[in-house]
């Protein structure tokens, strides 16, 4: 028996969807083993995770609340990876976006909400975007690898945030707790439903996903990104301004991650602290890959990942099994979807030896 690989010209949407769903399911199935080893009952754990994520209006609101930053960091990764710009720095870009929101929206400007909210969002977008434009320029000018630089910048940004919230931006009323001065009420996102935590940031994420989908499908920039992502040299030969396109992608990608930070400050916390994000930036990479880099798919992938996190927290409280199980599901989904991408790229022919012999 032998296997032969044949590259697929274009994979169908159905195949891509199947691969993503199968990857998510496979990851959930694989964690049955650690659950067993931790002395738990996997079926019980799954039931508790689903209940914890969707079991009540409150639970579902928490899931949507958790999905909000993940939609934006997922889109940040998706748009960058489409152009083969390896932005692994969404975590830092999220924090710098949140920092910009606080700097602009905590008393510097006195405006009504209709002006202040957009101003804060633009500031966060630009700050996050610049945080990615810098590595993109370093790559173009000096040939420095953006993967390592964006990874290292994450640590620099967190330290910068810690420095500022313990220094000039420190809230004098926080009883020594390191957190920033609060965002003005005029700069906050309203809740979508009274008494539930989900907020207008979710709408921002959904609108961003639709806009990005339109951009990818209908605009010149979308076409240029596709061309650059497929082949730099060919794109350059075809007269596409590769460097300029990459800088636009960098600004957009970093900006989306920056908006995720604005949303967490303006919609959830109201101030900046160094535990604003439990790794939303890194998880965004998994979200984007699960979505097959599709903007609309990112929304659903973010919902899945958010449900796993929220559900696992509640499962952990009920059973005592560590909620790091959620991180495990997320990591395994990434590896499973990567393996799945093999079947999207190649058609695997399986030939009995007899058939092989005849062909020879």
């Amino acid at each position, binding site marked *: 028996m032998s296997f032969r*690989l044949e590259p697929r010209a274009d994979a169908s949407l159905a195949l891509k969807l199947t691969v993503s769903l199968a990857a998510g399911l496979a990851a959930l199935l694989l964690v049955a083993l*650690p659950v067993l*080893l*931790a002395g738990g009952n996997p079926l019980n754990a799954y039931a508790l995770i689903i209940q914890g994520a969707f079991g009540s209006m409150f639970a579902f609101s928490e899931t949507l609340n958790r999905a909000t930053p993940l939609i934006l960091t997922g889109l940040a990764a998706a748009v960058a990876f489409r152009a083969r710009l*390896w932005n*692994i720095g969404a975590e830092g870009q999220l924090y710098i976006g949140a920092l910009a929101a606080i700097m602009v929206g905590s008393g510097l400007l006195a405006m009504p909400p209709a002006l202040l909210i957009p101003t804060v969002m633009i500031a966060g977008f630009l700050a996050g975007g610049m945080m990615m434009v810098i590595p993109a320029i*370093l790559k173009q000018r*000096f*040939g*420095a*690898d953006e*993967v*390592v*630089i964006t*990874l*290292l*910048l994450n*640590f*620099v940004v967190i*330290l*910068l945030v*810690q*420095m500022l919230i*313990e*220094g000039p931006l420190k809230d004098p009323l926080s009883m020594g707790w390191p957190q920033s001065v609060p965002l003005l009420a005029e700069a906050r996102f309203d809740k979508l439903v009274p008494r539930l935590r989900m907020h207008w940031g979710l709408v921002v994420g959904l609108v961003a996903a639709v806009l990005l989908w339109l951009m990818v499908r209908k605009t010149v920039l979308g076409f240029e990104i596709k061309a650059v992502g497929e082949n730099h040299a060919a794109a350059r030969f075809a007269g596409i301004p590769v460097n300029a396109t990459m800088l636009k992608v960098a600004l957009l990608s970093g900006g989306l991650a920056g908006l995720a930070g604005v949303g967490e400050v303006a919609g959830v916390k109201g101030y900046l602290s160094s535990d604003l994000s439990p790794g939303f930036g*890194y998880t965004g*990479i*998994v979200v984007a*890959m699960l979505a097959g880099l599709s903007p609309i798919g990112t929304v659903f992938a973010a919902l899945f990942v958010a449900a796993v996190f929220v559900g696992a927290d509640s499962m952990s409280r009920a059973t*005592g*099994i*560590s909620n*790091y*199980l959620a*991180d*495990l599901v*997320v*990591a*395994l989904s*990434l*590896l499973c979807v*990567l*393996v799945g*991408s*093999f079947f999207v790229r190649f058609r695997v022919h399986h030939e009995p030896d007899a058939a092989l012999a005849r062909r020879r």
Partner: protein
Amino acid sequence: MDVLFDIFGSANFWAAAVRIATPLIFGVLGALLCERAGVLNLGIEGIFVAGAMAGWIAVWLGAGLWGGVLVAALAGAVFGLLHAMLTVILGLSQHVSGIGITLLATSLSYFTYRTALPSVTSPPRITPFQPIAIPGLSDLPLIGPALFAQTPLTWLAFALVAVIALLLYRTPLGLAIRAVGDNPAAVEAQGLSVQGLRIGAVVAGSALMALGGAFLTLSAFDAFFFGMVNGRGWICIALVVFASWQPGKALLGALLFGAFDAFQIRLQAEIGQVVPGQVFLMLPYLLSILALVLVARRADYPRALLQPWFKGQRH
């Protein structure tokens, strides 16, 4: 100026520099071995965590310190094998697989630690490797304590630099590993297995990375903490470029980095009242970025780095 003189004149400083450099030496050697064979291993950050956790748990369960080192290396090798299956056999994206390995190794380590020790307020401790002073040599001024009063793992790291250098430049296997990262077609023409060589290099390199993690829990500290690796793996990836993929320069880079880090810690103690502590903590990351930017243009990347190879493939 007196401050600088005090710092550089203290034997303590040089000993600390070597201690800080040790996990990086393991990590850089591991990353170098993988990349020389043409495979970028961004799993390094997670493999550090796995090595630190697995080594520590093994010792805590009574395996003995060297037993812990072995368990750490095995844990690294397992994650290396997974990375090799995905990137070498299936030819999938080395970037994405590496990030996936880092997420998996980190979350699996944290989950295991939490499951083994469900509710501890202060982490339990083990008795780590103790420094061994070589009589006579360790009394030398400045370099005595730095080079001759370290723990066995530091000496192992130095020895491995020589071993990897000899392997790469003086043995047929080393020639094959270098060729597989530069010109896999030529290696296959010689009748050697490109994929076999790559898998071997990634597995061995990942085991080395895990030793860097094990040094943290078995030698530098005596317990496992969440977040203790703190970007050391990523710094190693930058140092490999800085070292032009050469073991000797990798050692030099790690030592320079260790000296710089030891320096900023001491400088912090001297002028910490004036400058916020975070500025000093940022410096190692900024230094790595600067080093990467400065050498990137001249960097002599293994030519087949990131490129998968399928058996019988034609150009």
